């Protein structure tokens, strides 16, 4: 009788409620399909358990009416399989069975069936059960779309918040990382090899004495904006910003195999942008402002540091301290790098880009460190 299994195709719509009828008796599937289609329900038909699983994999229906005694996998087995799969666990399944014993009902419940319908099928009972599950399904779908909207809004809020500190591209990666176990922003504090650029603005102390506060703040903001753009251009992360200094990290929070090159390019671009920012103000070009930077790499502790009321995602450790001291050693509009950064980039840059300077003695460090100046 298999040749009698006729599936009437009806136009598919995204909003239609779709039911998959699974039964090896074509008279039964034809009967159930006719009742459901009369209600405007889109119906698919599968003649056994394997065909049902294939149909679900292709396009999961909104509800399944599932016969129990079929050749191949039984309805219990199909139900159990679908209910143990996260992708299909929420799909309502009604077991349609002529089995009358309580043991079969228990077996169905254990397999995860949402409801039972006895054969012979009573049409009003069938339609009542389907309508109930349809309403539940629609409520669930509504809740799911609200949940997705809320998640989108939450991600957008995170994007806006983080975009103040990191480049938009990194913000997108962090959003992807939200909820991922072991992701950089979900892990606790950790040790990482990073490259940092410590930038110091000089000359503002004198300006504060001679200029109005709004003017000083406007000048600072203009320059910090230019420096931040340079950092974002190379996907750096702003780890700290004080009144007259800025700390930018690379290889954090995500790996950057060319972190040292990025740091060097950032510092060079910062010098260029800092000059341009001054030029844009015209009459303020000669106000005695300058920039110096130090770059160092090494192991640092990365994490959210602060109190429960104020947290800052930042880095602490030797490379940060060394970069800060190099920035202080640097002359006006000069960038100094430590020996480790020189080692990492020397094969990648035109000869002479980094010029050796006299080894320096740093505060709190025994001996001296190698220092190189960037020739712009």
């Amino acid at each position, binding site marked *: 009788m298999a040749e009698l299994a006729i599936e009437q195709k009806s136009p598919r719509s995204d909003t239609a409620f779709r039911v998959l009828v699974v039964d090896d008796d074509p008279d039964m599937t*034809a009967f159930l399909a*006719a009742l459901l289609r009369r209600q405007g329900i889109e119906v698919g038909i599968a003649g056994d358990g394997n065909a049902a699983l294939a149909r679900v994999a292709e396009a999961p229906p909104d509800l399944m009416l599932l016969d129990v005694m079929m050749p191949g996998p039984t309805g219990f087995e199909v139900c159990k399989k679908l209910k143990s799969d996260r992708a299909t666990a929420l799909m309502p399944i009604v077991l349609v069975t002529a089995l009358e014993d309580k043991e079969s009902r228990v077996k169905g419940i254990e397999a995860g069936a949402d409801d039972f319908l006895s054969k012979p099928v009573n049409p009003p009972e069938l339609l009542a059960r389907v309508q109930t599950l349809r309403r539940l399904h629609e409520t669930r779908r509504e809740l799911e779309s609200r949940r997705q909207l809320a998640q989108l809004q939450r991600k957008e809020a995170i994007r806006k918040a983080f975009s103040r500190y990191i480049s938009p591209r990194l913000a997108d990666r962090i959003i992807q990382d939200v909820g991922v176990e072991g992701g950089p922003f979900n892990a606790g504090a950790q040790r990482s090899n990073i490259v940092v650029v410590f930038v110091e603005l000089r000359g503002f102390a004198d300006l504060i004495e001679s200029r109005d506060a709004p003017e000083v703040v406007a000048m600072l903001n203009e320059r910090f904006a230019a420096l931040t753009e340079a950092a974002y251009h190379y996907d750096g992360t702003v780890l700290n910003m004080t009144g007259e200094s800025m700390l930018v990290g690379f290889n954090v929070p995500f790996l950057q195999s060319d972190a040292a090159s990025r740091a060097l390019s950032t510092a060079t671009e910062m010098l260029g942008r800092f000059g341009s920012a001054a030029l844009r103000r015209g009459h303020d070009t000669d106000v005695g402002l300058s920039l110096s930077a130090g770059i160092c790499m090494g192991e640092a502790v990365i994490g959210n540091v602060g109190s429960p009321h104020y947290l800052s995602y930042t880095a602490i450790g030797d490379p940060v301290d060394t970069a800060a001291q190099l920035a202080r050693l640097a002359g006006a509009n000069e960038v100094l790098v430590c020996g480790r950064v020189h080692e990492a980039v020397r094969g990648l840059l035109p000869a002479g880009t980094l010029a050796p300077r006299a080894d320096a003695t740093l505060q709190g460090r025994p001996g001296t460190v190698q220092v190189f100046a960037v020739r712009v």
Partner: protein
Amino acid sequence: MTKDSYTVTVPKDLADLIPTFMSNRKKELQTLRAALAALDLEQLRQLGHRMKGVGNSYGFEKVSLLGKQIEDGARSGDRSALEACIADYDDYLARVSVVYG
């Protein structure tokens, strides 16, 4: 064996399905006979189970009743009961008429 005629009322919107349904019942009767001749009790049980489920879904109460009796007869291996049921089914299919309402 009753000589009464049987009338089944089927909803109008299932009318299209009835010719196939009736044709399948006649094929089913042949399959039942063959299974009984071979004393294939498992097939008889499965056929009876199927009749029980589908018969009264369409409004053919007697098909479901006979299906249950065949399923039970196959389980207990009661050949004479099975023979009587199949003869009754043959008679029923010959006499049943359908009206649409």
